[in-house]
């Protein structure tokens, strides 16, 4: 009995996914974003195989080299191959995006569940806390947290994750409030399901669509936020090849070697834009009002 119910649920889920996928596929920009993201993931995984040089390999006799056959995009102030550093930088940027959003989602979902599912005083208290939390501009909160944690890429990821969690808490809370008094939740209660089971199985699935959109859009934003932290010296530390840190290092040579800030910036725009295009596409595809 249990298994047939699960199977029926899965069959329905499967068809929902295929509806969304069919609609997403029609959106050429979103598909382009998806393809670029897939490419970036491949580049990140196979970075050591693709990159012609190591990201930290210096050649002090050959600094600021113009593009050549040996160095397709030239070299930086320490003679490191710019292209190789860009390729390795993909790893850092995806890491930042994925991990900080994961931290934010887990924290935000936990808070949102407590507020939305239990309601009452817990809800009021948590929402006041989020109000206070959100009256500090996001970047400023990340800066304060990152200062407190100390410089470094991992700390920057934590700082960004913690400072962006309120969005997810609000999304989860709003959708749980909507379903809290639904009959199927009552039915689940009637069969003596635990709160945990009700939340995981019946309540949270309702929040997946808005959550997925926010996650996709925020991966890009987190990458941008991390580059800002790098810029003020709180993010990735040398010699790590992170695009934001590369930009920051390049700004000292802006008068003579502008390419050192042009390439990492373009890499960042392409990857963030891909995530945003996918997020926009997902939003349109998941919009129930457009269902046909």
């Amino acid at each position: 009995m249990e298994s047939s119910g699960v199977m029926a649920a899965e069959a329905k889920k499967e068809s929902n996914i295929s509806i969304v996928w069919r609609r997403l596929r029609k959106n050429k920009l979103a598909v382009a974003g998806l393809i670029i993201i897939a490419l970036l993931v491949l580049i990140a995984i196979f970075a050591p195989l693709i990159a012609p040089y190591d990201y930290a390999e210096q050649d002090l006799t050959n600094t600021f080299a113009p593009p050549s056959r040996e160095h397709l995009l030239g070299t930086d102030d320490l003679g490191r191959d710019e292209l190789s550093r860009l390729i390795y930088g993909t790893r850092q940027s995806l890491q930042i995006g994925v991990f900080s959003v994961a931290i934010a989602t887990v924290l935000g979902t936990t808070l949102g569940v407590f507020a939305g599912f239990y309601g009452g005083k817990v809800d009021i208290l948590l929402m006041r806390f989020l109000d206070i939390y959100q009256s500090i501009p996001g970047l400023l909160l990340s800066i304060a947290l990152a200062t407190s944690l100390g410089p470094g890429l991992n700390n920057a990821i934590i700082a960004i994750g913690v400072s962006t969690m309120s969005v997810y808490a609000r999304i989860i809370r709003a959708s749980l409030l909507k379903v809290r008094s639904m009959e199927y939740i009552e039915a689940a209660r009637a069969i003596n399901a635990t709160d945990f089971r009700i939340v995981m199985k019946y309540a949270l699935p309702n929040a997946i669509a808005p959550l997925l959109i926010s996650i996709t859009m925020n991966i890009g934003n987190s990458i941008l936020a991390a580059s800002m932290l790098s810029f003020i010296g709180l993010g990735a530390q040398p010699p790590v090849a992170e695009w934001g840190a590369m930009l920051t290092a390049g700004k000292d040579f802006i008068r003579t070697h502008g390419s050192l800030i042009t390439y990492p910036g373009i890499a960042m725009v392409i990857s963030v834009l891909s995530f945003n295009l996918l997020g926009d596409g997902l939003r349109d595809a998941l919009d129930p009002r457009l269902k046909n």
Partner: protein
Amino acid sequence: MIPVLLGVSLLVFTIMYFTPGDPAVIILGPSATQESIAQTKHELGLDKPFGERYLEYIGNAFLRFDLGKSYFTGRSVSDEVLVRLPYTLKLAGLAILWSIIIGIPAGAIAAMNQNTWKDNATMFGALFFLSMPAFWFALVLVMIFSINLRLLPVVGIESWKGYILPVISMSVGGAAGIARQTRSSMLEVIRQDYVTTARAKGQKERLVITGHILRNGLIPIVVVAGNSMGTMMGGALIAETIFSIPGMGSYMVNAISKRDYPVVQGGVLVIAICFSLIMLLVDIVLAFVDPRIRAQFSSKKKKGSAAKWKAAA
């Protein structure tokens, strides 16, 4: 409003309290003796418990506007803030102004030409600008206009020309966000009956757009604009370091690298307070542009993020 300010100060204070590293050691350097460290700690009041230190801090901050002293220069943080804050607010204010001036018409054009090339081009452009690190765009602008074309100054704000590049680099992101919001809120109301009615009675198309469509979609736009004020102040911190503007940003970024915590703490607190005041202003503006808001608040129904801010205040 006051609970929010107290909450913000507690949050900022707590974050800074748990920062590893002893401020006394930072001030005196690694070669300091145990006794001198203990003495400095006592002088700064760092040996007192958390609660007492917090109460003392907010007491000084809110009653006497005293945010402590810099560990390094010994100068009062409040005095520095008073000199520097106007630059930051001016930058952020100009940037938000330009975001609105560019963003709303761009979004309106996109909405009125939905699914045409104009719409697609505007929206792709908006997304592109949202996907760009603002400081990178600032550096690219410097490269093009100051270094290559020599049209504008690289740094400083001696003349009004010095504001052009910082404000442009800060406002494109905000303009993009506002344009996207304007488009979607206008599309929500564009097919309402009262729009058809307005057209049917022969109203000029321009007035239909401004008076009926835009007016009714204005609430989320104002909220987005208010929220981007927070982003703008964050962005101002970055822009100031690039363009060497003596505002809060250059002050704080400097302090972060030297671990001058009273400066970081005071700076974050002051900006957060400014932001809270601006959000309060947004609520007043909302009630002004839309009388329905008041009714919404009195029924205590949470609808949209506008109510959230009102509740916070």
